[in-house]
C-alpha cells in the first residue's frame, strides 16, 4: 500500500516539477571558481568575465540534477553565438562515473570536477541542484536551488536580460 501511495504521490510531483524559480541573489560577492574539466583543462570563472555564465552544481546521484541537464543543454544551444556559457560543477564524484553519465546524456558545456567539495562549500551549494546565474559584470544575479526548466519563458527572459 505504501508503495502504491508513493507512486501516486511522486507521479504528482513529476507532473508539477517546475515550481522552482530563479530568485535574485542576496548572498554577496561571487566566490572564486577555478576547476579542471574532465580532460584536465582548467576553467577559471574570472576568465569568463564579459559573458553571462550559468554555474550549475550537480551529482549523478541527484535525480533532479540529472533531470534538468538536457534542458541546460538546450538552453545553451539556443543561445549559441551569444556570450552565454554553462559550467556544470560535479560534486566530488569519480571521473568514470561522470563519464558514464555523459555517455548517456551528452552535453556540450564543460563539466568541472570539484574533487574535495571545497568549491561547492565556498559557493554554499549545499542543496542540489544549485544554480547561479552570473552577469557580464561577474556578479551573481540569480540563484535556484532545485530542478528548473531552463527553457521556460521566465527563465529565458532573465538570462536574455543579462545578456543585453
Amino acid at each position: 500500500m505504501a508503495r502504491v501511495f508513493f507512486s501516486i504521490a511522486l507521479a504528482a510531483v513529476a507532473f508539477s516539477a517546475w515550481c522552482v524559480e530563479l530568485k535574485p541573489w542576496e548572498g554577496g560577492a561571487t566566490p572564486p571558481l577555478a576547476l579542471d574539466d574532465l580532460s584536465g583543462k582548467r576553467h577559471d570563472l574570472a576568465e569568463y568575465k564579459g559573458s553571462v555564465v550559468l554555474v550549475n552544481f550537480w551529482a549523478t546521484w541527484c535525480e533532479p540534477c540529472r533531470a534538468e541537464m538536457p534542458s541546460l543543454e538546450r538552453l545553451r544551444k539556443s543561445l549559441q553565438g551569444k556570450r552565454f556559457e554553462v559550467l556544470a560543477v560535479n560534486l566530488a564524484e569519480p571521473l568514470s562515473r561522470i563519464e558514464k553519465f555523459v555517455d548517456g546524456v551528452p552535453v556540450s558545456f564543460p563539466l568541472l570536477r570539484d574533487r574535495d567539495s571545497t568549491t561547492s562549500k565556498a559557493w554554499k551549494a549545499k542543496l542540489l541542484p544549485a544554480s547561479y546565474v552570473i552577469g557580464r559584470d561577474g556578479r551573481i544575479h540569480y540563484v535556484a536551488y532545485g530542478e528548473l526548466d531552463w527553457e521556460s519563458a521566465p527563465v529565458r527572459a532573465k538570462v536574455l536580460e543579462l545578456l543585453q
Partner: protein
Amino acid sequence: MNRRSFLKSATAASVASALPQRFALAAEAGWRTFETVTRVEIKDAFGTARAWVPLPLAMDTDWHKTIGNAWSGNARLAKIEHDGKYGVTMLHAEWSDKEMNPALEVTSRFMTRERNVDLSRAGSADLSVAERAFYTAPSELIPTDGVVLKTALEVTRGAKGDLEKSRAIYDWVVDNTFRDPKTRGCGVGDIKSLLESGNLGGKCADLNALYVGLSRAVGVPARDVYGIRVAPSRYGYKSLGTGSPNITKAQHCRAEFFARGRGWVPVDPADVRKVVLEEPPGNLPVQDEKVLAARKRLFGGWEMNWLAYNMGADVKLPNSKGPKLPYLMYVNAEADGEMRDQLEPDSLRYTITAREIIL
C-alpha cells in the same frame, strides 16, 4: 527522451563507478558511504503547508562527513536552514495554499566511520570556558538542578574527574533504567518527570537525555546526538541495526560527554537497555554475554551504521507556528498552521529508505 526514460538511463549510468581520489582515500581509512531518501507527502493540505526534514550533520568530523543533499518535489520553496544555537540543519519546504498534494523527496549522501575512543590515552583536548558552559547548561527538558542534581551527586559520589563521573553515570543509567516498548517514538526526554516519577522507563531520547542531564548537573559537558540507523549491525546485534532498507521508524539518539585530554567520547546507555529488551530471544539478563559486550563497547564507541543529524535541543522550526521541539529527529510538517504528528509517520505519510553505496 521523456523524463522517465532519461532518469532510467541516467540511473543505470550512475551505477557503475570507480573510486575517486577522495573516496579511495576514504575507503582505505574505513569510511563507508550511505544514501538516504526521505519522501514526504502532506495529506489534506488546506492552506499553506510546510515541512522540515532533518539533514545529515553539517560539520565534518573524523566519524561523519556529509557529501551533499538534493531535493525534488512541488514545493514553491526549499532551502537549508540552521538553528542558530546548535547548528541543527534541516530542509525547510513550503507550499502555496493552492497546492493540495504537497510532496517532497530529499536525497542525502554521507560517509561514516567507526568511533572508538581509546580512553587509556590522554592528549591535550579541552573545551574553552564558553564551550564548557554551553555543554553544561540546562535545556527546557533537561534541567540540571533539583532532582537531577540530587541524583547526579548521589550517583557520582566518590568519583573524580570527568571520566570517572561519566563512567559512574553510565553504569547507573544502564543498571537503573529500562527500555519501555510502549513509549511513543523515541520518547520525549523529560528527565525531571522521569526521575520524579521513579519510573525510569523510556527509549533512547529519554534514557540518553537522562545521561546527558546527570552529566551536565555535575559539570561534565555532554550532549545528545540525534540520528537514524541506516544499516544492519556488523557486530551481530539484531536490535542495533536495520532489518530492511525501509528505515522510517529507525530513529535513534545517542550521547557524548567531553573528557579533558580525550575529547568528545561516544556513549549509548540506551542501546545497552535495547539489547537487554530486544536482542533475541528477548529480555536478556544483564549478565548475558551479549549485554556485557554491548555495555563495554558502548562506553567509548559507536558502530557507525547510523547517521547523525544534529545535537540540538529546544528547536524552533523556521516559520512554524508550533511550539519549540525538544529535538529534531523526525520529519515535521504543518498545514494551515496546524502541526502534523511527527511521531506518526503513517499519519504524516513519509518514508525513509537507506542503502550503502559500494564504491
